[in-house]
């Protein structure tokens, strides 16, 4: 049947119109981008005349979604970080010790004296002087265990406790380790996101990948090391009681203590109690400030429980020093002069203004729960991206024109019909890319160029078939009809197989390769659509109007 029902005609043209409409903003890329940025700025910081002017550059009623440009086109930094999830086990155990000690102390009559033994940091070893009380000790410590929810095990708890001779061994359970890993990664992700947001760059990508990896892509940033500086510092702030001060890097700090170097004074080491009084997690605010001598410093404030612990400790230990420790270095170790009840304080040190600002940002965002190891780093300069866009644009234009001319020469009027469909096709690809917020990469541009080359394939199949049918069939209408009918299975088979490879590329690939898979896949969808609906509709409309006795394809 050469007839299209009216609703089909309307639907086909409507689809094309919507595609064109959505693709339109990309033709005015920088203008629309300014408009979008200005809108975002107004939402955050209120309206200014300059911003309002930028907003006005692109009408609000027009679509404003753009194709995102990938890092290889815009320039920026890419990092793949692995979260060292096992780090957390040790600090969990460290924090557990005071709790275990306090639980065992009242039982001294039965279990004797207790003593912390050196061990693997992921376990706590406690020796009791009366081994016959082990059963009681195990019971007491097991009561400290908290139940956890897992998919597999009902009744799992967070710690495992066992006795070996006179030694009680506490470690995290497997279920708890799994849960902890998951928490550590999502916490790291959140903190990285906050830190990058504080710096305020456009459209960063921060994604979890696999079990313990985080992918970070920030367009427009100068280099990967700059990005690492923003996210890489852990900024683990703790306040620890000071046991002693010395200059021997290899001194034995004793069980339950640790040796920490001073940040400023080379060669000075502090012996500190490992379990902190308060940690940075209980901070609610940190701001860059200046101390009474006008030197840069950081003001901080604790939450209620942090303030209480801090207040109690300072009240009980007036006259003794305590250490402010940042990432395993003592920033300062002031002597407590008086009870500090309000839960706020100031960190002084030899900071520059910039350092104190950065430190405040890091403290505010919270500490990363574990170290990050960077597995992959990429920096692409904006000039290279600009060059690539320019080259891609020219290549696409030339490819486009070459194919258009060739089609017109080969198929005459029908070639021009196919060309209209090809132009619509590229517009539809851009419309779809904008709609789903996909990212265009350099291989993605190659995907579009490839689509331009291959998109004519479906039309070529049909036209060649029509040529064949013209030789045998009764009249042009029948030939056109049969041409479409018989070419359809080849078109579908050929495109479905290519589509399968695009899907596999998308599922397995990453970064630029995925960008290629997206444009290739979308290109297949739009080219099939334009070939079997748009060109056909154009031909039918032309045929209805002209009613030619013979046609030449």
């Amino acid at each position, binding site marked *: 049947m050469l007839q299209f029902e009216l609703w089909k005609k309307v639907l086909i043209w409507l689809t094309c119109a919507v595609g064109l409409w959505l693709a339109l903003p990309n033709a005015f890329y920088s203008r629309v981008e300014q408009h979008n940025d200005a809108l975002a700025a107004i939402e955050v910081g209120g309206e200014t005349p300059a911003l309002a002017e930028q907003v006005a550059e692109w009408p609000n009623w027009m679509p404003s979604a753009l194709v995102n440009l990938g890092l290889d086109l815009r320039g920026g930094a890419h990092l793949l970080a692995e979260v060292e999830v096992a780090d957390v086990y040790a600090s969990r155990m460290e924090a557990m010790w005071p709790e275990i000690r306090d639980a065992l102390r009242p039982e001294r009559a039965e279990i004797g004296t207790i003593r912390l033994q050196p061990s693997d940091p992921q376990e706590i070893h406690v020796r009791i002087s009366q081994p016959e009380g082990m059963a009681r000790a195990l019971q007491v410590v097991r009561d400290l265990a908290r139940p956890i929810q897992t998919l597999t095990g009902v009744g799992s708890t967070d710690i495992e406790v066992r006795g070996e001779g006179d030694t009680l061994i506490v470690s995290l359970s497997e279920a708890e380790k799994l849960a902890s890993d998951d928490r550590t990664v999502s916490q790291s992700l959140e903190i990285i996101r906050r830190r990058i947001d504080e710096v305020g760059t456009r459209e960063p990508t921060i994604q979890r990948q696999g079990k313990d990896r985080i992918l970070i892509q920030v367009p427009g940033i100068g280099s990967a090391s700059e990005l690492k500086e923003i996210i890489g510092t852990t900024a683990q702030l703790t306040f620890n009681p000071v046991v002693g001060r010395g200059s021997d890097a290899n001194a034995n700090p004793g069980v339950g203590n640790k040796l920490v170097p001073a940040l400023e004074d080379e060669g000075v080491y502090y012996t500190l109690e490992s379990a902190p009084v308060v940690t940075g997690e209980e901070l609610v605010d940190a701001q860059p400030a200046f101390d009474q001598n006008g030197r840069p410093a950081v003001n901080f404030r604790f939450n209620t429980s942090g303030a209480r612990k801090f207040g109690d400790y300072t009240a009980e230990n007036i006259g003794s020093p305590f250490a402010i420790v940042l990432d395993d270095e003592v920033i300062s170790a002031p002597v407590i002069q008086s009870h500090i009840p309000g839960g706020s304080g100031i960190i002084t040190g030899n900071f520059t203004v910039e350092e104190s600002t950065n430190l405040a940002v890091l403290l505010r965002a919270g500490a990363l729960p574990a170290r990050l190891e960077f597995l992959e780093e990429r*920096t692409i300069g904006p000039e290279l991206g600009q060059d690539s866009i320019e080259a891609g644009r020219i290549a696409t234009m030339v490819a486009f024109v070459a194919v258009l001319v060739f089609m017109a020469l080969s198929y005459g009027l029908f070639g021009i019909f196919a060309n209209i469909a090809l132009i619509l096709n590229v517009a539809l690809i851009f419309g779809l890319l904008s709609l789903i917020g996909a990212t265009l990469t350099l291989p993605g541009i190659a995907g579009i160029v490839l689509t331009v080359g291959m998109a004519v394939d479906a039309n*070529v199949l049909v036209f060649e078939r029509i040529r064949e049918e013209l030789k045998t069939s009764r009249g042009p209408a029948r030939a056109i009809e049969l041409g479409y009918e018989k070419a359809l299975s080849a078109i579908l088979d050929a495109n479905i197989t290519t589509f399968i490879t695009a899907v596999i590329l998308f599922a397995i690939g990453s970064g630029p390769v995925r960008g290629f898979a997206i444009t290739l896949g979308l290109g297949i969808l739009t080219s099939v659509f334009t070939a079997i609906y748009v060109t056909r509709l154009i031909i039918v409309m032309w045929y209805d109007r002209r009613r030619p006795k013979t046609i030449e394809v």
Partner: protein
Amino acid sequence: MRLKLVRQNTSVDFFKNWKRWLGLSTFLMLLAFGSFMVRGLNYGIDFRGGTTIRTESVQPIDVGAYRAALAQLELGDVVISEVFDPAFGDDQNVAMIRIQAQADEEAVTADKIALVEAALKAVAPEIKFVSVESVGPKVSGELIQTAVLAVVLAIAAVLVYIWLRFEWQFALAAVVALVHDVILTIGIFSELQIKFDLAIIAALLTIVGYSLNDTVVVFDRVRENLRKYKKKSLPEVLNLSINETLSRTFMTSFTTLLALISLFVLGGDVIRGFVFAMIWGVIVGTYSSIFVASSILLYLGVKRDWSKPSNTSGNQFANVDA
């Protein structure tokens, strides 16, 4: 008068020497495999870890001076090559520096990159570092695995699809042609020592898709003709089908090549290797769909007694109406 790449109504006998064609393809595949074994692929950092730095400077590049500047840093294997591209301006001198993965590190550390940059600045003060990419050995190992997995999965998926839509002989013949294309592409990459990275895997998969596209169109016609001409022998049907689709095969390959060549010449050096792989793939894919896939099909033979009632192109897609 229309432009025609192929005369109408060709009747070339493609199978006069089909054993010779298969022999040629086998020989080429052995050659490619030999080159791969002897020379190996020039893996990019995606697959072997390490760092690449792309520099740009106004002064002409003195590779020797760069090498001398970096030698003192003891970074192991360092490869420095100058990049040429017609799109570069006169004062745009580009070099690529590749540093091997360092033994004890996941990714090259920032300090080390800073050292490299400082050393190069000493010889070429106005040098700019337009891209710095570093991949650790852990990730690169995984990338190889996923890349191989992707190619194998794609071929397997295609095998299943064609098997469902045609007969197993068609599926097998198509897959042999695909493997042929992939091997020849890997062969030319090892022979010419073009950088083989993640993007090339994407190109390989596209070649798989493209070559298949061609093969499927021919097979589709073979299937149709097998039903139409029950009396004709298989070689005759194959020949007829290829001749009938020849015009289309050339048209599509030609338009695709037009687009790819413009990208190859004008698209910049960053994706040139990628585009080269695709151009090669289109040529090899077109050849293999005619000479390899069809010859294999001829060799395997096809079931001729179609149980389904035959109509013009009897399959479930044929009656989809627009």
